[in-house]
């Protein structure tokens, strides 16, 4: 991933007003995690797994933060129970940003995630936008965060290979 693309993701989070992030570093998104860890305006909490990250983001929301979870496609599977819980029981907003491995055009073996990511989000009733052009990254992150806050639920942004690499 080129640093300029990672910067677009961070810029999108900033334009959206996100000031708190949590997640587990992922090889394809490592530049984003590093930028967040060094950023003065956005607190980044590195967790041991993605379900823990959901809890940390949930708690931060109660403290007035505007949280986002930065989750790998594999990590989304780890986070599902807690995401479903806050979505369907508590109705608390959180932005979920996912580098979407396994979409069409991604040549590696990760087609597994084509079968789990979008069906998983649909099963949890989590709306999402799929971004295929880097020019759309900032605007889409901002729009999805606004929707999450308006609808009081998690909303996801899927950034696929075409947009990121």
């Amino acid at each position, binding site marked *: 991933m080129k640093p300029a693309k990672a910067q677009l993701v961070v810029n999108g989070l900033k334009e959206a007003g996100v000031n708190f992030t*949590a997640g587990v570093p992922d090889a394809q998104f490592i530049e984003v995690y590093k930028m967040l860890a060094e950023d003065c305006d956005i607190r980044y*909490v590195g967790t041991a797994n993605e379900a*823990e990250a959901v*809890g940390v983001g949930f*708690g*931060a929301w*109660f*403290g007035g933060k505007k949280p986002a979870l930065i989750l790998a496609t594999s990590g989304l599977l780890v986070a599902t*129970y807690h995401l479903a819980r806050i979505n369907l029981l508590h109705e608390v907003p959180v932005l979920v940003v996912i580098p979407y491995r396994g979409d069409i055009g991604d040549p590696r073996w990760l087609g597994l995630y084509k079968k789990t990511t979008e069906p998983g989000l649909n099963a949890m009733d989590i709306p999402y936008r799929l971004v295929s052009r880097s020019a759309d990254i900032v605007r889409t992150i901002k729009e999805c965060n606004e929707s999450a*806050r308006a609808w009081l639920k998690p909303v996801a942004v899927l950034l696929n290979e075409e947009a990121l690499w």
Partner: protein
Amino acid sequence: MVTRFTLLKELSAIVPDDVLVLTSIGNNSGFWGQLKDREANLFHLTMGMCSPTALGLSLALPNRKVLALDSDGNLTLNLGVVGTIANEAPKNLTIVVMDNGNYLGSHKKEPGMPTATGGKMNLEAVAKGCGIESACTIEDVAAFRENIQRALANPGPHFIRARVEALDIDGPPKTKRVPDPRENKYQFAGYIQRTEGVEILGSGLGGG
């Protein structure tokens, strides 16, 4: 050893009104809701979510005391959070783990299946091994009171493993309704907004 209810009753007598208390699902929520009806409670934190939620809240409000009433089964589902707490090191966070060594002991007349702490795991040693220096085990009311008061008066993070009886043989009469998750969300968030001056609720809509 002591019962969960005995310790929660003691906590209800000494916890300051402005300490934010987060409770795991089961009898930590059920008993606490009967003992301490207050807006500063967040109930029903499901398996693996109590201490992570308390961590996020303590980081967001670094000048406000946050106390998690967790349990052994709930915490061990996401045990990695103990390491995260040690590294993030929020000074305002206290984790209390009601450790009864079994799943579902809070609901049944016989102990449920053992948790890891019903076997060889020692959560105080886990916390210390993760880097939380202020970690202890208590087994009676006097030690519980002393460690809670010390935790709330000194910089943390603090980790208190409370070894309690396997079964909740006592408990408060159910005279109050514990709020459901959405109702509780609005109460708790509204209280924090009012007392901390932060904006939580509201969608940003309403401007036309």
